[in-house]
């Protein structure tokens, strides 16, 4: 482009150092977010208008039962006192007990969390494995406006696929492959075959989204001087794309992978609901509709903590992997 002499204010380039101080800052930020999450989950019960115990037990419940439950939950004490108890309990692994079944919430979470994580992780892996090569291929084929037809088909198909929510994919897959063809189990978790439809339903939207981003990133890379130089050196195509282009798109891909995992953990709520999958998502819907507040509170806390952990892990992994350490702060 034009020959601008680089001399902005504070010409020293603001390269954020990713030293130990940065790591400490990330961890502190993580801890603060976790604390905020704890406060939010505690406050949730208190924001509920009216008496949550009464709301949960229904108008017909005898006053003695309501009072006993309230006392058992400690809801009759002062707010700071309650918060301290709550924090103490959470830290010692006690998330309370279900209003309805009397089961400890920790046990519910422990039984169901692995099922949700399995779905979300599998879908993330599938999405990345399909979408990144797909996006790269589309970029190489449509570079500089060649193959308009391919470009057009790619943007239209992905644009459409992105816009359909996962629960519609779930319903469509169940109707066609489970009810119609009987090829896969329609619901529940029983063996490898039962994973296919939920993972697919969860992955289609992200595949479309990541393929678009992967294409854009690759196009940007193909336009850089070092790729032009690599082309001038007449490197074989495979070497050009795998060694020069791919590594530079990985930062974005990894960032996305992390965001995607958090999004899929939440997105699995709807998919689990359609497939009656014994995961956390199914449970949170049940607990909210049945006003089983301790369960809802515990599950939301766990969901939130997972999101925070995933984000921290991605940030640290990026800092460790990126040679220039100039990644944008998320």
């Amino acid at each position, binding site marked *: *482009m034009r020959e601008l002499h680089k001399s902005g204010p504070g010409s020293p380039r603001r390269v954020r150092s990713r030293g130990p101080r940065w790591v400490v800052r990330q961890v502190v930020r993580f801890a603060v977010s976790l604390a905020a999450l704890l406060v939010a989950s505690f406050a949730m019960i208190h924001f509920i208008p009216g008496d949550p115990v009464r709301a949960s037990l229904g108008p017909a419940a005898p006053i003695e039962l309501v009072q006993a439950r309230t006392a058992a939950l400690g809801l009759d004490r002062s707010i700071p006192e309650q918060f301290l108890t709550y924090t103490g309990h959470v830290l010692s692994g006690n998330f309370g007990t279900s209003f309805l079944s009397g089961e400890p919430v920790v046990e519910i979470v422990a039984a169901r969390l692995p099922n949700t994580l399995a779905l979300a992780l599998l879908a993330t892996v599938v999405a990345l494995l399909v979408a990144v090569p797909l996006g790269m291929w589309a970029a190489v084929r449509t570079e500089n406006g060649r193959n308009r037809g391919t470009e057009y088909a790619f943007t239209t198909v992905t*644009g459409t696929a992105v816009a359909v929510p996962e629960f519609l994919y779930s319903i469509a897959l169940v109707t066609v492959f489970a009810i119609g063809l009987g090829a896969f189990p329609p619901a529940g978790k029983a063996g490898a075959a039962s994973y296919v439809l939920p993972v697919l339903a969860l992955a289609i939207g992200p595949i479309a989204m990541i393929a678009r981003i992967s294409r854009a990133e690759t196009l940007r890379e193909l336009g850089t001087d*070092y*790729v032009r130089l690599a082309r*001038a050196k007449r*490197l*074989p195509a495979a070497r050009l794309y795998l060694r020069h282009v791919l590594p530079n798109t990985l930062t974005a891909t990894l960032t996305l992978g992390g965001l995607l995992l958090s999004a899929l953990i939440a997105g699995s*709520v709807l998919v689990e609901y359609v497939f009656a999958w014994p995961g956390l998502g199914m449970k949170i819907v049940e607990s909210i509709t049945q006003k089983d507040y301790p369960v809802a509170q515990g599950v*939301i806390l766990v969901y939130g903590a997972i999101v925070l952990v995933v984000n921290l892990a991605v940030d640290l992994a990026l800092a460790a992997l990126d*040679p220039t350490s100039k990644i944008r702060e998320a």
Partner: protein
Amino acid sequence: MSDTPPAAHTRRGFPMKPRLPRTPAAVAGAVLVAAMIMLAVAGPPIWGASAERIDAAAILQGASAAHPLGTDSLGRDLLARVLVAGRFSLALALAATLIGGLAGIVLGALPSVLPGRPARLITGTVNALVAFPGLLLAMFTAVVSGLGARGAVLGIGVAIAPGFARLTQTLAATVAGSDYVSAARMLGVSRRRILTGHVLPNIAEPLILQLTQALGGALLGLAGMSFLGLGVQPPSFDWGRLLYDGFARIYVTPEVALGPAAAIALAGIGFNLLGDAMAKAAARTAAGGKASDTAVPPDPGEPNPGAVLEVRDLTVAFPGGVTPVRGLSLTIAPGEIVGLVGESGSGKSLTAAAIGGLVPYPGTVAYGRLLLGGRDVATLSGKALGTTLAMVFQDPMASLNPALRVGGQLAEVARVHQGAGRAEANRRAVDRLGHVHLPDPAARARQHPHELSGGMRQRAVIAMGLMATPRLIIADEPTTALDVTVQRQILRLLREVTEESGAAALFITHDIAVVGELCDRVMVMYAGRVVEELPVSRLAAEAAHPYTRALIASLPDMATDRDKPLASIPGRQPAPSEVGPGCAFADRCALATARCSAERPPLIPYGEAGRVACWEVK
């Protein structure tokens, strides 16, 4: 490179009237959204009655002629209910979007008004919330505000808000940091005027665009909440609630889920396609030009056997009659350094790209002859081309791959084209780095590009070209991004390298003074053609073409008379699509006659070893 073809003349402008592209996707999106709006307006009055008509005789039916999508548990027609539910679904989505958008915009704007500490607190909170999946925020809010449409709308609004806040913050910060806001502040324009005059107009468009896209997202989110039973509760119904009811019967009569599912999918797709098209329209810059026929290159004559590079009648054209390089010819002898000088848009960088086979699609290259080392470039293998031709680009920051070590990038050439083993290739890379006077080459080879200064990087790029035994080095503005003291070192290095290896060089620059430092011969380009060619020793005193002379006179040097005004050239260089039949410089030339604008002067020999294209040079 400094001449990026057709787009070069529309840089950084914003489109005058963002118009939706007429692609089928954009049209489909617009039609779907229009249909949704019409449905929302007309649905309830038309089908309202049949949607509420209870029919005990037709309970829980599947598809039939009377009820194409079946009936519900009270025998009400599901098709009518789907058509009626459009209004409620869209209204809820609109409400959620407005709540979320408004809250987000306020949250995003607050930090620029508030003092430091609260501003940072808000920014931090927004950053933390953005990372949370929207559905999680929505469910949290729904628990607190109770099951039902109100809770779901609030929940989705809360889920949308952080994204808006972040976008507002980023946009406002970009505008607030711009030079034109700085200028307004210096002029004493009030904060309020800056906000209403500069900031708001420049961020409004992307925000409105985002609102449109968020509307689609809100609709899907609300449908999801209702589908889970957390949203709209009976007797009210939206599409999500109808899907909830239909899903319960999916094993018996799957068709009852079809109506609401299709409605949700179509709405989602419609808003998304329209949003995409609008975003594209907003980002697009106008590009114009008219078609023209490409001339057949004339007979190139006899080849010059001694030349390293021989180009005859090189033309680079882009669709739409844009021809940035027109019939260019040049010859470079072994060991010779030729400077190719021109302003941006003259076609000099595309000439280099054409010789290196790097003209971007959809550009087409035509030539009478393009010989490198006596052989047609088109017949050369990738290996032969990769080893006989070395290229150096303007920005050394961008010429090295940031992800790979410097040594590895050099060694690559030896490994791919010369079959060297890893150790041998690395040894050679270190040797070449030493050759370009990079201190401690072995250590530098192990570093990544960002650890080197700009000058060192440009040395490394030159070393990369020397990995093989290049016959020709093409350097495209190699010193423009460097400081003058570093520029001098790199120029010396280029001279040294060509003398040592016997390679020839084509040196491309906008700065005619630099040519004097390095080159043997100079060619001046204007609007895609060479207008003058002469030995550098005669450039200052004996240039003949009015453009060359004006270029030299308009450039102050250390001997320029400070009491006289500098020469300047009125007007501007014509764009590649605007070049007429005559001399392209005629409009700006003091000597121009009627003949100049009618008939193009040929490039004819002039003086000693020179050529010039001008009717007025005698």
